[in-house]
């Protein structure tokens, strides 16, 4: 669905490249992008979204060349939930905020409202339709931002650190949304630091380090390579580390798997 070839980018003309020579292809598998702060993850998704223009290389989304489109045109194809909800929220009510994107892509008012309410139900904010978004708590604001992007029903949905500020219940909601998008055959891409969440929810994991792709593969494969992960300063999930210290041979990703393995 996305094909990235020889992608390089730097913020200052000839300065230090933030990303250098990235080659990736994305299919329907849910994909987590992990790596230290400053590894270039957010820059990478902004490039996918057309918010930044690549210095070298090209990005194809479906048959679209990202370079030839404006970010607004790409909005029908690819949705991005920003890390900081305050950057995104700007309408007076929760419902208007969710409908904003839908109206932008020339959806009729009636349909837009229906889709918006559906998305808000999904995140559990449907009882707060007429509230001012700025009165919501931080975690609710994040869920609202997710709803307003998911409502647009794009083929590709990118989350930038969705689990920040979420308690267990909030994470459950996000997990449910990801599952739902997956069922609809949409590509979910997520930048994330919560490794437990990665292990439980993502099929594929990509590790960024200093502007390059260090590891790319199924989540289990990636978390089994302890030494390479250490180089990128990434710690495997708690349960994986526990299993490893206990001397279990297989790479364990979830508590269920762990219990299952121990029961043998």
């Amino acid at each position: 669905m996305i094909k990235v070839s020889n992608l390089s980018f730097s913020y200052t003309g000839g300065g230090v490249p933030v990303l250098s020579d990235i080659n990736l292809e994305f299919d329907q598998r849910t994909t987590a992008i992990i790596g230290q702060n400053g590894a270039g993850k957010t820059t990478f998704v902004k490039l996918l979204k057309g918010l930044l223009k690549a210095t070298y290389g090209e990005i194809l989304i479906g048959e679209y060349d990202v370079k030839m489109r404006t970010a607004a045109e790409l909005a029908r194809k690819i949705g991005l939930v920003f890390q900081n909800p305050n950057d995104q929220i700007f309408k007076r009510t929760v419902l208007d905020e969710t409908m904003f994107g839908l109206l932008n892509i020339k959806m009729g008012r009636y349909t837009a409202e229906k889709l918006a309410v559906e998305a808000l139900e999904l995140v559990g904010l449907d009882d707060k339709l007429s509230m001012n978004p700025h009165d919501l708590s931080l975690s609710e604001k994040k869920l609202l931002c997710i709803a307003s992007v998911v409502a647009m029903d794009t083929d590709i949905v990118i989350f930038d650190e969705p689990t920040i500020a979420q308690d267990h219940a909030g994470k459950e909601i996000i997990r449910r949304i990801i599952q739902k998008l997956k069922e609809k055959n949409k590509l979910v891409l997520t930048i994330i630091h919560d490794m437990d969440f990665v292990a439980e929810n993502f099929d594929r994991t990509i590790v960024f380090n200093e502007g390059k792709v260090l590891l790319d593969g199924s989540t289990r494969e990636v978390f089994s390579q302890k030494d390479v992960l250490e180089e990128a300063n990434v710690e495997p999930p708690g349960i994986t580390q526990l299993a490893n210290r206990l001397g279990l041979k297989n790479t364990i990703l979830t508590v269920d798997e762990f219990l299952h393995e121990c029961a043998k």
Partner: protein
Amino acid sequence: MKSISLFVERESFVHGIDPITKLYYILFAIIIPIILPSFTISAICLGTSIILLIFAKVMRKTLPVYSFVFFVLITVVIIQGLFKPGNETVLLQLGPVAMYKEGLQFALTIVFRVTNIVSAFMILVLTTKPSDLVEALVRKGMSPRIGYVIVSVFQIIPEMMTTMSTIMDAQRSRGMETEGKLLVRIKAFIPLLGPVVLGSLINTKERAMALEVRGFNSRNPKTYLNEEKTYPNSRFIQAVMLVLTVCAVAWRMFL
């Protein structure tokens, strides 16, 4: 972060002069041509300022400011040259339009005065870090609150510009067209002002609380983060300027 200050980091003796002396210099450059209203004196003052700007290696940065000022001044020259009451001697005749000598002379004095003041200000603005200036003023007894207000203007405006572009990105990614024709850009810009202003008000509240937590309103004498810089020549320069001013007054009165 972007900066709205015009300060240029260079190594020069002008940069090494303390901000207070530069403030005095502005006063000096304004007062002298008033005391001695002759062409030569104005020209000498302007010349001094320009030489100082050249020594400070910031001449290139002054060009946009000068060109803006000259743009305004040209209108003064034209209007005074054509219409000043008391215009008698025709200098230039272009069909029905006549330029007069008296008007042009008057306009020229204005041009000299304005460029003179602008140059003196530029010495301060281009060679002094805003925070250094404020710190020097606070040490001289200015209220730290006012100092904070001045410094924060230099921080908040670039911050608002950054926020603006992030919000812009967030809306673009939800399908709002912000690229292309001027009309499209303006249409996209206006609804964004609300969140930017609202956001900075919220930030202001948080900043105020953060300052309060660190004892901004405490009545004890404040200490400074930076050690006081010593400027060996400032006494001398200030004294020279004072003597010159006194001489100018004397000249005006007795000669």
